[in-house]
């Protein structure tokens, strides 16, 4: 935490921007993990809500001239509304059918954004989004983003640790039994879908304002899979897994592309190794080591 406060003072500006990008991705991936890691629902269209958040923020700032904080606050509301509509359909299905429907809806949102030139600017996106003067330096935006990230992580952590979060985990483990202990499985899945969508929207808005431009690619399914990859890399069974995964992905991307042209090859290889040998991702791997270390320490005390 303290490292995050002082780090940008020590590194170059391009690295600071990279870290802002990383934080937006961390919010997106952590929100996705509410569905995957905690709810057991694989969502292939999660970027749609990230995109809705980004466009809400961009349109309000550029076309309506709304105050910055209002635009930021409106993003999760519109994203949640979008997720509420899509989720209503998706929670009626499970497993692969659920995943396919989220993908389909995600692509519908993407296509509408791509074609609706008069409103969204189509493939030109929305450019030159104005920012308030107090956030125009990269460093200042970094601290703003850090505050938003911390707030989002805190909020999401509270939610997954809450009674609702427990019910969600029960649902992941065993939907049939969850219904039999009195939980309305569809309603709870739907609420989780909406909550995840809202947080994804904050991530999108955070990145949109920083980037000064938004494009339909923000909501393309490849963006969804990026969040998915990050979740797998970092570990979906740990709350901070996706955030850790975001750090790994963005920095590795930067490092590898500096020396090698085959970034996707490296990423694919890494992912394959993770899935084959470390199902719990990076955080799962660490937790396992810690467990072994603790066990060996406890062993010393046993008579």
């Amino acid at each position, binding site marked *: 935490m303290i490292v995050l406060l002082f780090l940008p003072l020590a590194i170059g500006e391009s690295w600071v921007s990279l870290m802002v990008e990383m934080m937006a991705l961390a919010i997106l991936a952590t929100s996705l993990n509410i569905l995957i890691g905690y709810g057991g629902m694989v969502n292939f269209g999660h970027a749609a809500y990230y995109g809705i958040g980004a466009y809400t923020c961009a349109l309000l700032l550029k076309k309506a001239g709304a105050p910055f904080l209002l635009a930021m606050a409106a993003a999760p509301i519109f994203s949640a509304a979008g997720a509420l509509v899509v989720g209503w359909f998706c929670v009626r299905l499970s497993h692969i059918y659920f995943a396919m429907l989220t993908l389909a809806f995600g692509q519908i949102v993407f296509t509408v954004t791509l074609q609706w030139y008069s409103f969204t600017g189509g493939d030109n996106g929305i450019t030159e989004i104005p920012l308030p003067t107090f956030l125009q330096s990269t460093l200042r935006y970094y601290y703003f983003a850090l505050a938003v990230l911390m707030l989002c992580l805190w909020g999401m952590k509270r939610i997954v640790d809450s009674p609702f979060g427990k019910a969600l985990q029960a649902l992941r483990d065993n939907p049939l039994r969850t219904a*039999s*202990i*009195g939980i309305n*499985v569809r309603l709870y899945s739907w609420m989780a879908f909406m909550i995840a969508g809202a947080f994804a929207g904050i991530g999108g808005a955070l990145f949109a304002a920083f980037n000064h431009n938004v494009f339909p690619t923000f909501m393309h399914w490849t963006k969804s899979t990026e969040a998915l990859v990050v979740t797998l890399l970092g570990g979906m069974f740990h709350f901070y897994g996706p955030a850790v995964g975001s750090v790994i992905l963005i920095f590795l991307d930067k490092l590898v592309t500096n020396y090698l042209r085959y970034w996707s090859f490296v990423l694919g290889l890494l992912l394959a190794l993770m899935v084959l040998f470390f199902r719990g991702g990076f955080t799962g791997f660490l937790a396992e080591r810690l467990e072994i270390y603790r066990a060996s320490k406890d062993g010393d005390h046993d008579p």
Partner: protein
Amino acid sequence: MILEVEGLTKSFGGLMVTGHISFSIQEGERSAVIGPNGAGKTTLFNLVTGHLRPDEGKVYFQGEEITGLPPHRICRKGISRSFQRVNIFPMLSVFENVQVAVLVTQRKTRGIFFSAREMARKETQMILDSIGLGEQEKVISGTLSHGDQKRLDLGIALAGNPRLLLLDEPTSGMSPEESTQAMALIDRVTRERGITLLFIEHDIGAVFALAERIRVLHMGCIIAEGKPEEIRENDEVQRIYLGERK
């Protein structure tokens, strides 16, 4: 009458699995459903608990019609059940398995902004102690032995604070000793809590040890109903079911 079933009928693709089943259960009664494989016992449970919707017939619980309600609503009215296979939340700890069910019963699972960690500790602890898993509350439930998982399964059902408990083969996959222990546990907890019990069981020893009333299901119909000694002496039951086992 705590449960009344009237003419319950369910067919799967032309095969009638239960045909016009009617019976009623008195408050406090402990009864068993027996019958050969495929007799429709589990289907009957599923029809009562809302996991299946009957083609015909009605189910009343404490005088109120519950036919066709979704499982979660039926559970909240006071019917808990267990399943033939172990049905727990394998990635959650033993404590959390029971706790989540207690929280639902207390209507607290809608809270999203406070930590659940210590909630419902007393109630959860009480249930864990009564099923003998108090010492293992931190263990991830998926790593428990089969017998302990079955006990936890019962604990989850008890957390619903049910008036009527439906157990689908509570001793399946158990050794004879485990089976005796399990039936003693069920006997104790249902007596302590005054729960009406209906269970499906293949272990005839367990059935005769606990049930005050037995219903025999064969090809989707109840062919006999009565006290254990009456069932034992029933010729048709002997021929169809009990005799088979000799």
